[in-house]
C-alpha cells in the first residue's frame, strides 16, 4: 500500500449557528493513497463539494484534521494555505471558471504566476499544445467550446505540476463526445501518477475511477473499489 497523500481525521464542517446550524460534513475520516483516482458520488446538497473545498484548502473544517502530503493544513495561515492551493493542488470546476477577459494562454499563465513558478516561459503553451489547444492559445474562453474550455481549465490546474487534482463535476457541462475526450485525458493524468479526486453524478464517469465514495448527509456511507489494483 502506497502512502496516503490525503488524510482526513474526524473532519466536520458546520455552517451558521444556533437553530440554523447546517452540518455539511459530519465526522469524516478517510485517506487516499498517492496516484489513486477517486470518484465521490451522492445526492446534491449532501456535502460532496464542501468535502472537496475542505481538502483543497478553500475552506477550513470546524473540527478534525486534514493532512495533505504529510502536512496538516488546518494550522496554516492564509498565505501559506494560498501557496498550497497554488502548488500542491489543481482545481477544475463544472463551469470551467476561466477568466473571460484573458486568452486561453493567459488563463494558464495566471496560474503559473500565482503559483510562483520561477520559469514560466513556454510552460503554458506546452500544456495547451499537450491538450491539443495550441491553435486556440490566443482565443478568449467565449470563443471556445465547452470541451475546449474544460481542457484549458485542466491545463491551468496542472500549471504548477500539482500532485492532487480536485474536480467538481468536471463533465457536468459537457456533451458525450467532449466527456469521452476528457475522461481519456484524465486516464492519462492518472497513469502519469496524479491523484485525482472527482465529484460526479454520472455513474459512467465514476466507473472510470478506481475507488468510489458514496456521500450522504455529510458522511461517507460506502467506499467501493472498482476492481483495478
Amino acid at each position, binding site marked *: 500500500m502506497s502512502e496516503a497523500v490525503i488524510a482526513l481525521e474526524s473532519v466536520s464542517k458546520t455552517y451558521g449557528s444556533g437553530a440554523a446550524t447546517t452540518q455539511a460534513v459530519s465526522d469524516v475520516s478517510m485517506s487516499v493513497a498517492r496516484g489513486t483516482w477517486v470518484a465521490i458520488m451522492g445526492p446534491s446538497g449532501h456535502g460532496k463539494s464542501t468535502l472537496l473545498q475542505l481538502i483543497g484548502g478553500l475552506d477550513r473544517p470546524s473540527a478534525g484534521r486534514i493532512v495533505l502530503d504529510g502536512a496538516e493544513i488546518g494550522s496554516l495561515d492564509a498565505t501559506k494555505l494560498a501557496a498550497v*492551493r497554488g502548488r500542491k493542488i489543481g*482545481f477544475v470546476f463544472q463551469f470551467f*471558471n476561466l477568466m473571460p477577459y484573458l486568452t486561453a494562454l493567459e488563463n494558464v*499563465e495566471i*496560474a503559473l504566476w*500565482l*503559483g510562483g513558478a520561477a520559469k514560466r516561459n513556454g510552460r503554458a503553451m506546452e500544456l495547451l499544445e499537450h491538450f491539443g489547444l495550441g491553435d486556440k492559445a490566443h482565443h478568449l474562453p467565449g470563443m471556445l467550446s465547452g470541451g475546449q474550455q474544460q481542457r484549458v481549465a485542466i491545463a491551468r490546474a496542472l500549471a504548477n505540476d500539482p500532485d492532487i487534482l480536485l474536480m467538481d463535476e468536471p463533465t457536468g457541462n459537457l456533451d458525450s463526445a467532449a466527456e469521452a475526450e476528457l475522461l481519456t485525458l484524465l486516464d492519462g493524468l492518472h497513469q502519469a501518477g496524479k491523484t485525482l479526486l472527482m465529484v460526479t453524478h454520472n455513474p459512467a464517469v465514476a466507473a472510470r475511477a478506481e475507488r468510489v465514495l458514496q456521500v450522504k448527509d455529510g458522511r461517507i456511507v460506502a467506499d467501493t473499489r472498482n476492481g483495478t489494483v
Partner: protein
Amino acid sequence: MNLGKLVWRNLLRRRGRFIFTLAGVSVGMAAFVALMTIGQGLTGEIRKQAQGLGANLVVTPKGWCAYEQISVLTGEQLPEAIPMSELEKIRAVPGVKSAVPYLNEKTAFRNQPVPVIGIWPQEMRTLQKWTVESGRYFNAPDERAVVIGAAIAKQFQLKPGDEFTVRGKPLPVIGVLREAGTKDDIATFIPLPLAQQIYEVQDKVSFIAVQVTDLEQMEAVSLNIQEVANVAVVSDKQLLASILSIVGTVGAAMQAVAAVGVLAAAFGIVNTLLTAVYERQREIGILQAIGSTRRTLFLAFMLESGLYGLLGGLLGTALGVLGAYLFGPALTDNAFTASLRQSPTPALDEVTILFTLGFSVGLALLAGLYPAYRAAKLSPVEAMRHV
C-alpha cells in the same frame, strides 16, 4: 502574466465605466490645477507690480479702504484727496529721500478706458528707471504732451507724433516707454500740473510714493509723516501683504471648491471599484483557488485605483493647464486684478505637476483602500458561490 497586466486588463474591461470614472478624476484634478496655476500666476503678477512701485512707503488719505490701497498698485482711478501742501511737509521730514505725487485718473480714448497718471516727470523717471523705447521723454515739468506705455501704444497703434486726447483735450504723443511688464505698460503719463488742470482738481493728488534713506528707519519716518501731515501711511510690504491675503483668500476659496470636485471624483473611484469587487466576486474566488493570496488581491485593487489616480492626474494636469491659459484671463478679471490687463501668465512648474500627480495618486490609493480590503477579505468559497 503578472500583476500589472492583470490589473490593466481588468481596468479596461468595462470601457464606459473606466472612461467616466477617469473623466471624473480628470475634471476634478483639472479644476484643481487650473485654479492653483491661476492663483500662482496672479500672486507672481502682484509681487511684480509691487516692485514696480519702487517706493518703500505709500502716503494715502486717511480712511482709505483696502480696495483703494490696492489700486495704488494696480493703477486704477483714485480720488484726488491730498493737497500739495501736505506733500511739501512730507518732503521736509528727515529720512525721506524722495516723495513723488501721483494723480490717478482715467480718460476715454476711442471709447476705451485708459488710465491717465499725472506725474512729476524727472522724479518719476529716476524712481521707475524708465527707458524710452521711441520718441523722447518730457523736457519740462509742465510740458503739454503725453508719454505712453508700451501696451497702450500697441493697443491703439500710437507712435510719437500721433495725437492722444485726455478728457477731450488733444495732446501730442512724444514718447513710448519700453515694456516693463508692469501696470506702467497700460497707462499714459502727463505732467502733474497739466493733469490737475485738465481734471480740475486744484492742487490735489491721489497718493504719494515715498522712498526712505535708511530702511531701518522706515517705521520712524512713517510715524513722523503722520505727525506732520494729515495722512495715512502704509509700507509697500503691508500693501503687498494685504493684497496677497485678499487674493489668497479668494484663491483658497476657489481651491476649496476644486477640492470638493476632486473629493467627489475620489468617491467615484470608490464606487467603481466596489462595483468591480462585487462583479468579480466569483473571479476573486477562482483566483484564490488557483493560488492567489489575499495580499495579491489587495494589491491588484490598489493598483487599479492608483492607475485611476495616475491617469486622471496626468489628464487633469494637461486639461487644467489648458484651462488656465484659456479661461485664466476671464476668471481673474475682477475688481482686484482689473488692471493686470496683460493677463496673469499661469505659473506652471515641475513642483506643481509633481504635487498634483502625487495628490491624485495618493487620494486614489486612499479611495482604493476600502474596495481592496473588501476584495481581500472575501472567502474563496463565499466568493465562488456567486454566479
